């Protein structure tokens, strides 16, 4: 069964656009590097995304979860800013690091608001800062091996020349299979509001496919005031992310880690990856996601064996005794 698929078809390092058949003249793979350490939670990305992509604003609730009132990534929310308030005592490692923009900590932005922690000696307003605030703008990961794309039975989901994953609204028949297939819970079938376009159709971030075609940055990256959302060639972004982590580690922010940047991970690396300051699940990410299709050859083998068992069992039931 495995021979039905080419090596690395289902997982492993791969250039997704080349795999999809785009020629040598294809553009570089595009993606996002979201550096959550400098996110200020302004939600400009959410607004810009809705404005540009005409995503309806039907789900605004007072959720009682810090400043998060947009709940999650879903059909009507293609960028979602997570807010996490952590009591200092509950933080995994007490860094005792300087506060915002302290001198000599490796350049501007290192001690950004996201990593703001009270001074060990109680300098400034440390008394009132007995917690740290994590903020992170989540988005579709545009996986190298995308579960949604793999399972789509109509070809509505496709790989663009930029290596991103996009739904064709006029092809999708709303079967909903992509929804449970995504290991990150990103894509969703739109159920409303009634006057919205594409109700019944799977919806998610397109990495502003229309803007990329015109040589522009995606709306969220364009609107981000701190450049927490960085858009560019994935290769270059990965390098930039490595440098940023090294810089933060040097400054004593040992919690800083990258998420989704490794082409050998369970989804072949993501086109949109993140710098986080705590475990992925704190932000609502799966800690070690794997594309479900990785196991597909084994599933087909098991199902074939089961089918053969049924055929043999039925034949056996008719053999022998007359009644």
């Amino acid at each position: 069964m495995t021979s039905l698929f080419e090596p690395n078809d289902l997982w492993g390092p791969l250039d997704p656009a080349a795999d999809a058949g785009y020629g040598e003249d294809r553009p570089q793979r595009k993606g996002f590097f979201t550096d959550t350490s400098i996110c200020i939670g302004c939600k400009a990305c959410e607004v810009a995304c809705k404005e540009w992509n005409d995503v309806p604003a039907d789900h605004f609730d007072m959720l009682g979860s810090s400043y998060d009132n947009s709940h999650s990534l879903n059909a009507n929310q293609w960028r979602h800013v997570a807010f996490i308030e952590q009591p200092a005592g509950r933080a995994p490692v007490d860094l005792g690091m300087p506060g915002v923009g302290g001198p000599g900590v490796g350049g501007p932005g290192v001690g950004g608001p996201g990593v703001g922690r009270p001074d060990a000696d109680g300098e400034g307003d440390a008394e009132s800062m007995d917690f740290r605030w994590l903020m992170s703008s989540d988005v579709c990961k545009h996986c190298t091996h995308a579960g949604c794309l793999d399972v789509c039975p109509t070809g509505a989901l496709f790989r663009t020349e930029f290596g991103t994953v996009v739904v064709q609204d006029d092809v999708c028949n709303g079967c909903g299979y992509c929804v449970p297939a995504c290991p990150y819970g990103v894509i969703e079938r739109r159920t409303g509001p009634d006057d919205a376009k594409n109700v019944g159709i799977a919806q998610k971030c397109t990495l502003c496919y229309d803007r990329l075609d015109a040589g522009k940055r995606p709306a969220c990256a364009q609107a981000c005031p701190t450049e927490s959302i960085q858009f560019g060639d994935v290769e270059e972004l990965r390098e930039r992310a490595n440098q940023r982590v090294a810089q933060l580690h040097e400054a004593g922010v040992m919690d800083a880690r990258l998420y989704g940047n490794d082409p050998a991970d369970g989804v072949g690396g993501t086109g949109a990856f993140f710098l986080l300051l705590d475990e992925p699940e704190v932000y609502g990410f799966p800690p070690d996601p794997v594309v479900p299709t990785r196991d597909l050859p084994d599933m087909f083998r098991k199902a074939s064996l089961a089918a053969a068992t049924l055929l043999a069992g039925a034949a056996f039931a008719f053999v022998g005794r007359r009644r």
Partner: protein
Amino acid sequence: MTERPDNAVTRGGPEGVRSQTTAVPGVSDLGPKARRGGGDRSMVPDVEFTSYYGRPIVKESPWKEEIPAYLFTGGLAAGSSLLAAGADLTGRSGMRRSARFAALGALSFSMGALVRDLGKPSRFLNMLRVVKLTSPMSVGTWILSAYGPFAGAAAASELVGMLPESARTGPLRLAPYAGRPAGLVAALFAPPVAAYTAVLLADTSTPSWHEAYRELPFVFVGSAAAAASGLSLATSPLAENGPARRLALGGAALELAMEHRMERSMGITAEPLHQGTAGRFLRAAKALTVAGIAGSLLAGRSRTMAVASGAALMAGSWCTRFGVFEAGQQSARDPKYVVVPQRQRMEREGPVRYSE
């Protein structure tokens, strides 16, 4: 989309295990009150995990009751086509007739359910734009496209055969001869129809579906055999139902045994199989299937027993499909079943990394 962000972390273990979230310290205070009644039990005694306000990580499928109903009727159609072909080859005309009609009826219901479930039912035929091996739904669509016409032709031939001689004119006179070849081709495509639905569920990030992928195809073909045999027991002449009794026994035993094995191989993601709606369905499935097996032993002598045991087997299969479906939905709503298995795997083997 769930509107109850904190529902997921209220599922504590029997000893009032605390599910932890560093995101909202207040929400983590779960006492023994979180325990549910009935057959709920925790496989893993002490589980701590972190989540974002207890919100789901993966999304549950948008599928409603049409899909588990389809899982049942698809299996019923497949099993019936196998019984019809066997009955045809062994001269059991009563059994053949009822099984061919059962296959067509179940298949028609399946198709209706599948179309109804789409977000854009008018675009049903878009499924036939592509052949995609990475999509079990695409593979399944093509399997059904191959199976359906032949199952339909076999039933049509049966129907024509019931017409009075005078009404069989023109091409209708050929219909009786088409029955056997059509029925045999349908029987050949029937096992994949019964088995692929397990891959359909398993090839997702829904924890309790994906983790079941090793045994689920066997559970589903067993369930299909039991359901179809059950219907055959209820609708065939007593004198002809020997094969249905034997297939019922084999199918039901396979279903029960593999379901048991599945629960043991799934780790913490087996928990939803015992909880809430899924737990109720699966407990009912076991009871009904066992009752069906017992009844089928007497179904060769008593019409009443044949009908009763057949009904129990069908109901058992129905409950199995709804139970497995619902368990997956429940597992997707609770971040615990995403985080904990991945963390356990990381502790055991390190993070998943591709190597040549």
